[in-house]
């Protein structure tokens, strides 16, 4: 009798957790829709909102742009070297460049940029929002509910999204240039074949999936940590903080996006 009761209790706990988990995702989607509406509103780009947006944009992107590019360049060089040497040793050197472009530009760099910005910017922003929330800044009973969202949350979300996009774009361009130089050397003779390889890799479908993936990653990194700290209810049974739960949600979403992108590209 006791074991039956405990099993029922565990089952109901599991069901409640699952419901809360799905309800949390529902609140995040709702929150994202609100922010999207605010992002399309011209009033979000006027006066103090514009200044806040500019401040977050610069603070979240400029300090990390250079050394993230440097870091990805070094990692890219290592991966390019490994791929090229392996391809040559198996007599498949003509596929090396295509493989480098696929591995680096299509897969690794957008993912790395998203993870990097999530850890470097999104989580601190979420912690700040959590503090503001604790002070009741985003209290729903306030007369002007949209104003704190426009001033505090939208700039942070947009700056993080922008940061992911810019870091990914710059790193992709640098990695593509490094791959060319590594394979062909400092000569313009290989530009035609390299361009042709690029064109062959980036078919319309793959380009669309790549764009959607990068956009999805950047939006996920911008939205999910902040939405989690705002809408995840404190759970006394869990010893993790709201920021950490947000990070788990973010990684889960990144995993989903990656799987969807891989399925779209290669299946």
């Amino acid at each position: 009798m006791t074991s039956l009761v405990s099993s029922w209790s565990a089952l109901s706990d599991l069901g409640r957790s699952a419901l809360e988990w799905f309800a949390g995702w529902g609140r995040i989607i709702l929150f994202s829709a609100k922010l999207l509406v605010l992002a399309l509103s011209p009033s979000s780009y006027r006066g103090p909102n514009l200044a806040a947006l500019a401040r977050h944009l610069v603070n979240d992107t400029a300090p990390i742009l250079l050394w993230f590019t440097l870091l990805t360049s070094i990692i890219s060089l290592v991966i390019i070297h490994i791929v090229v040497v392996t391809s040559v040793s198996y007599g498949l050197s003509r596929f090396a460049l295509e493989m480098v472009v696929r591995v680096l530009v299509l897969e690794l760099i957008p993912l790395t940029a998203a993870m990097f910005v999530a850890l470097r910017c999104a989580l601190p922003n979420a912690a700040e929002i959590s503090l503001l929330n604790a002070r009741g800044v985003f209290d729903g009973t306030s007369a002007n509910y949209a104003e704190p969202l426009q001033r505090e949350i939208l700039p942070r979300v947009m700056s993080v999204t922008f940061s992911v996009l810019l870091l990914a774009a710059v790193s992709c361009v640098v990695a593509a240039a490094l791959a060319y130089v590594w394979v062909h050397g400092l000569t313009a003779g290989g530009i035609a074949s390299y361009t042709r390889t690029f064109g062959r890799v980036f078919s319309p479908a793959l380009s669309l999936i790549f764009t959607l993936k990068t956009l999805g990653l950047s939006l996920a990194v911008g939205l999910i940590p902040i939405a989690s700290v705002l809408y995840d209810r404190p759970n006394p049974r869990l010893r993790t903080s709201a920021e950490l739960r947000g990070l788990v949600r973010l990684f889960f979403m990144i995993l989903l996006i990656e799987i969807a992108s891989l399925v779209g590209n290669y299946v």
Partner: protein
Amino acid sequence: MSNEPTPGSRTSESLEFRAALLVGLLVVLFAASAAYLLYARGVFEPSQRLVLLSDDAEGVTVGMDLTFAGFPIGRVRGIELSADGTTRIIIDVPRKDARWLRESSVFTLTRGLVGNTNLRAFSGVLSDPPLPAGAERRVLVGDATAEIPRLVSETRDLIRNLTQLTSTDSALAATLGNLQSASERIKGPRGALGVLFGNDADAQKLVVTLDRTNALLARIDGLAAKADQQVFGAEGLMPEARAAIVQLNAALLEARESLKKIDAILVDAQAIAGNARAASTDLAALRAEIDANLRKVSGMMDEVNRRWPFAKPAEIKLP
């Protein structure tokens, strides 16, 4: 009250400018990447269409290259299955590269062992008319892996045949056994002849025949030596025949001289005959003249007789 910008507003303007720079950088990167991709996909390049027909387009993918002499000159834009089950591989060839394709060009689709597929064009006669836009050509399929099952099957047959050949009850083994017994008999007193005839008596007959043939050949040899002496010896037929021929030649020369003389005589006779013909012509004129004179004399005698008193009847006595 002053209108000078405060440090806070200056900072805000600076931040906005830097943010604008970052946004501008992102926009430029996006625009440049999009333009480069469109260029790489050949959107800005005028091209003409080529359709390759094949029974099987396995391994052909959209975006793969059509190469000529190792250089990519076209790109697969689509693969269709026509109503009659033929595969249509649609290829865009840039106009600047279309000059390598001629009416007589041959297209091949080759599949390697590691799965790579290649579309190649071969133009043997570059002076032929250029390939028109939208042309449809059959593609020759060369599949290295398609040969493997047939090769394996034939190899299996070969091995089965070899096994049958080398088994203990096979024809080859029996033949080898016979060969061994034959070689044993070759080593015997009759040697290979005993193997050929199967028994010693027949082999002995052949030996006797050979001996008699040798003796016959020796006699024929002596006969030939004598005949040679008779024909070609110092007193043989040949020297006499040669002397007779020399004499015959001398006689022929003399006959030729005689004939020449006869020819000359005949020429003279011909001239005499000509003169005689001319003389007989003159003789006729002379006779006519004599006839005329005789008539005149006759007429004169008739006149004299008429006038003469002792005329006698007119009678002329010709000598």
